[in-house]
């Protein structure tokens, strides 16, 4: 087996060749057909859901289930008069800051725990305890301590965001195959080299999976923080719309919130693409 050596292969009979090309074309056609089918199905699911929603809405009061058309109108209204933007801004800021704070703690603690088995043994009961406490139940306490501003929301968001990242970081850093560790040992690698050139790149997919979870959790944390006490933010809007029986507004805010959540999740995915092998970061490093 020598892949680099070109071997002389007798030309196949032309019929066979034609058939081969046809198969390739068929594959391409199948691919296109599959994509078309997927798009059609996606559109169909949306149409059917909206139809079902409309139908159910027609059966009940708009206080219970507003019609999708009405919700759409409200979204357009609050966007046009600009009243929603300060709420979106505040909530986004809380989520992002909570995500950054939680990720920094999760990553830092994860690295520390992966580094020292002793620390891991000492800290793990407290970590488990910190997760066993229903953290969202702590939200009123943080509001009491930190007030009604964004600080309390950031802390709550960070508190529930850090743990999945911490766990993933520890697993990713520790799950390196023993053969690779032996290779590094045989190449006289020191601790820092083993960390930066072996453990960290190995942990990268684990860390990004943790970051995606952290972003979703930070969103939950920020909203719950706003529920407990705030007059600005999408969570506060939901509480206000609930208090004024404005169910249509509540649905509009929920839809905006969902869109925001998806966008932030995609942001982390996009960040991951930068760090993927063959990605921008890898290419920059190679040209260096």
């Amino acid at each position, binding site marked *: *087996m020598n892949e680099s050596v070109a071997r002389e292969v007798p030309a196949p009979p032309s019929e066979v060749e034609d058939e081969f090309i046809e198969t390739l074309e068929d594959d391409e056609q199948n691919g296109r057909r599959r994509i078309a089918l997927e798009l059609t199905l996606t559109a169909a699911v949306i149409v059917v859901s909206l139809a079902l929603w409309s139908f159910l809405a027609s059966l009940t009061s708009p206080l219970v289930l507003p019609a999708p058309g009405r919700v759409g109108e409200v979204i357009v209204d609050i966007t046009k008069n600009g009243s929603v933007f300060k709420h979106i801004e505040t909530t986004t800021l809380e989520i992002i800051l909570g995500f950054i704070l939680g990720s920094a703690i999760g990553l830092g603690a994860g690295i520390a725990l992966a580094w020292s088995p002793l620390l891991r043994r000492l800290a793990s009961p407290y970590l488990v305890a910190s997760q066993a406490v229903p953290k969202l139940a702590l939200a009123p306490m943080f509001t009491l301590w930190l007030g009604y501003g964004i600080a309390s929301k950031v802390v709550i968001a960070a508190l529930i965001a850090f743990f999945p990242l911490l766990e993933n970081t520890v697993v990713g850093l520790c799950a390196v195959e023993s053969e690779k560790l032996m*290779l590094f040992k*045989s190449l006289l*690698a020191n601790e820092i080299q083993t960390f930066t*050139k072996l453990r960290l*790149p190995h942990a990268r997919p684990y860390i990004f999976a943790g970051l995606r979870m952290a972003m979703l959790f930070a969103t939950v944390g920020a909203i719950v923080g706003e529920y407990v006490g705030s007059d600005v933010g999408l969570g506060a809007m939901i509480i206000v719309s609930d208090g004024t029986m404005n169910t249509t507004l509540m649905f509009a805010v929920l839809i905006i919130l969902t869109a925001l959540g998806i966008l932030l999740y995609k942001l982390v995915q996009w960040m991951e693409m930068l760090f993927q092998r063959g990605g921008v970061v890898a290419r920059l490093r190679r040209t260096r």
Partner: protein
Amino acid sequence: MNSTAAIRVTDLYKTYRSVAGPVRALEGIDVDIRPGEFVSLIGKSGCGKSTLLQIIAGLVRPSRGKVLLEDVPVVKASRKVGLVFQKSVLLEWRTILDNVLLPVELFHLVRAGYVDRARELLGMMGLAGFENSYPDELSGGMQQRAAIVRSLLCDPDILLMDEPFGALDALTREQMNVELLRIWQASGKTIIFVTHDIAEAVFLSDRVILLSERPGRVKEIVKIELPRPRTIETTYLPQFADYRRHLREQLG
């Protein structure tokens, strides 16, 4: 005993602690290997041949006895020694070129000084054009060649190979053996080659060291006096069959 041995193993013992009590892996190993010699270690699985190799590489401490590399006692891994494992152990997030250059980075050498040599060695091993591929885009044989290039890059005097072709199919393995001999002859390196394949050991080696079952002791050292350079034709010689039969019988 001649004082210019490339590798000298004296009175080496290794006992592992395990839950079921101590396991004696190696017992009283004495071996001298000349510079430029090709020596194979064979024995049944669990006879301690990999352990012996790891002790020589400075990765595992012996319980007793010592190893000298060019008269210097082994206390830890050394740049003089290149290692090839059964698996290629390439880093999947690095390109082949970056994988091959890993030792340069870890030894704090200047990368630019080794890129040309890396490309040349990759070319010699039939990997030209795959420098920017990732390991999972290569076949098992090609991955193992990349691992060999990595071990050769910083020009170690000694190459320790732990069943490097064990995971390859028979034809690939045969070809790799021929290529390995070519590299060995061109470079004059000392090679210790662990295998459980008798034919492979006979084909490659100047001497074959046969280890007994656990605890591993040197049962016999067989000098292989087949003409070099060896090719596939060598394997059809009657002496080749004789060596194989003898070693097979000794292996039990």
